[in-house]
């Protein structure tokens, strides 16, 4: 039996796992994607080298931009690093700070981060950055109802809106996994995540084609360490969303049930493995469907909305 870790250390480890694991997960996805396209692809560690390089570079701000332009990346990364405190990343039991916000609290932090990045992009006066932030805000407004309905489903399933409670409910019996409300909510959330991480339906997350850009375009005017922070923020966001999907909805197994070192280490490995597995699925989906035209995005979102609404309906009839 190994030593028991103090609770604050585990809490810190949750944040560190997400912070340090995020570029790695992005690297794995990029590698898998390249292999699917018949390329050799970059090293798995490439995102770390990219970040290290950018952190050493000089930072420039466009003329006329205020202090907010430089503060925004910091605020965004801080918001993203607060979320791992609220969701089950490593443990099945709630950590002390885990109850300072519920699912809506996590949602607010995600929106806050995206809002400050968009505002910073508006500061620049560059048309592409503004286009990107305007698109990002428009489309996040239409995906919001889907997220709300997923939250409603969680609330009806557990009687609370705490992510820990849902994970515990899903773990409790096979009947909870197979029930339609749970599967429909998880599917709707997965579709939202595809959209939010800039995969299908319209965005090319790696390309520099302005027409397909939503999120990527917002960091056009940032440079040096600030650009590095923004890149890191989008990797963090991706890992956080994958963690919510895997540890709260789809597979809340492999989390540490005790404070022992070995179970926590196992939980870290399990989380990264689950995130990479979700990433592989995303990469396969990304490579097997054609991109939609930008204004077809409402169709994609309406499909996700339909699935989320059906989840709530089935619960209201009992037995869903």
């Amino acid at each position, binding site marked *: 039996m190994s030593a028991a870790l103090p609770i604050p250390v585990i809490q810190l480890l949750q944040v560190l796992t997400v912070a340090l694991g995020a570029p790695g997960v992005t690297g794995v996805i990029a590698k898998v994607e390249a292999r699917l396209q018949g390329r050799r692809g970059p090293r798995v560690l490439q995102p770390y080298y990219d970040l290290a390089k950018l952190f050493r570079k000089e930072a420039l701000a466009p003329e006329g931009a205020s202090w907010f332009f430089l503060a925004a990346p910091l605020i965004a990364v801080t918001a993203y690093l607060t979320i791992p405190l609220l969701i089950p990343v490593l443990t099945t039991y709630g950590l002390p700070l885990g109850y300072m916000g519920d699912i809506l609290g996590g949602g607010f932090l995600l929106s806050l981060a995206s809002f400050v990045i968009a505002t910073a992009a508006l500061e620049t006066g560059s048309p592409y950055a503004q286009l990107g932030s305007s698109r990002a805000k428009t489309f996040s407004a239409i995906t919001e109802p889907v997220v709300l309905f997923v939250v409603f489903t969680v609330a*009806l399933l557990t009687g609370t809106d705490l992510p820990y409670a849902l994970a515990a409910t899903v773990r409790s019996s096979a*009947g909870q996994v197979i029930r339609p409300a749970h*599967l429909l909510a998880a599917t709707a959330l997965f579709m939202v995540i595809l959209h939010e991480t800039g995969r299908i339906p319209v965005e090319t997350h790696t390309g520099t084609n302005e027409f397909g850009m939503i999120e990527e375009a917002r960091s056009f005017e940032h440079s040096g360490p600030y650009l590095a922070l923004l890149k890191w923020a989008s990797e963090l966001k991706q890992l956080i969303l994958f963690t919510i999907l895997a540890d709260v909805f789809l597979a809340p197994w492999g989390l540490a049930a005790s404070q022992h070192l070995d179970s926590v280490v196992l939980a870290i490995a399990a989380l990264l493995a689950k995130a990479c597995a979700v990433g592989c699925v995303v990469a396969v989906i990304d490579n097997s469907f054609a991109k939609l035209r930008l204004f077809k995005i409402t*169709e994609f979102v309406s499909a996700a909305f339909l699935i989320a609404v059906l989840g709530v*309906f089935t619960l*209201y009839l*009992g037995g869903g």
Partner: protein
Amino acid sequence: MDPTQAPGVYEGVANVIAAVMLLIEFGLLRQALARDQIRLYMAQSALISVLAIVIAADRNLPDLYALAGLSAALKVVVVPLVMRRLLGRTGPEEGEEAAGVAGSQTLSPASAVLAGIVLAAVGFFCFGALKIHGPAAPALALALAAAMVLVAFGLMIVRRDVASQAIGFFTLENAISLAALVVASGLPLILETAFLFDLLVAVVVFGMLIRTHHGRSESLSTSDLTRLRG
């Protein structure tokens, strides 16, 4: 019923199958090619056979295995084959893509889905309020079947082409089969089979309709029918 309590695994599986069938119905609403519509119909029909097998295995009703086999043979193989041949014949040239049904939407796909959600909600809550509990399958599956019936009607209304309307009618039959499985899965096999053969009649009628309509107006669209002829 307390929603935080999960129903059993068997009920969960039956409900999930019914829910996926309803989602396929929605998929038909926005599908642009007749070929893909037929594919979705095949998937939906295959699912209802799977549901019959699940009910048969769990509730020990061996008749349902036969029904599942028969229904799969008819709805997954025969009906799609007949539909493909019919639509193939209406294609512009030999070997070309069958006539498209893309332009037949009267609502944009997103609005059609929203309208479908409203229809499904009506079906859901009306049947939920009736509180019919079959011995075999859960009440939720019945409500899903009711929603499917209404969405299938919606499909026949919002699409202005004969092919979509035929598929809409066939999926209507699927929805009714689902409801029958839920409330009366112990029905004698001979009656169930008789219902299946009703479908064959419908296929023949719709086949005639598609061919006559195409022969007269050179298209699958029913919007030409609004013009008065002297």
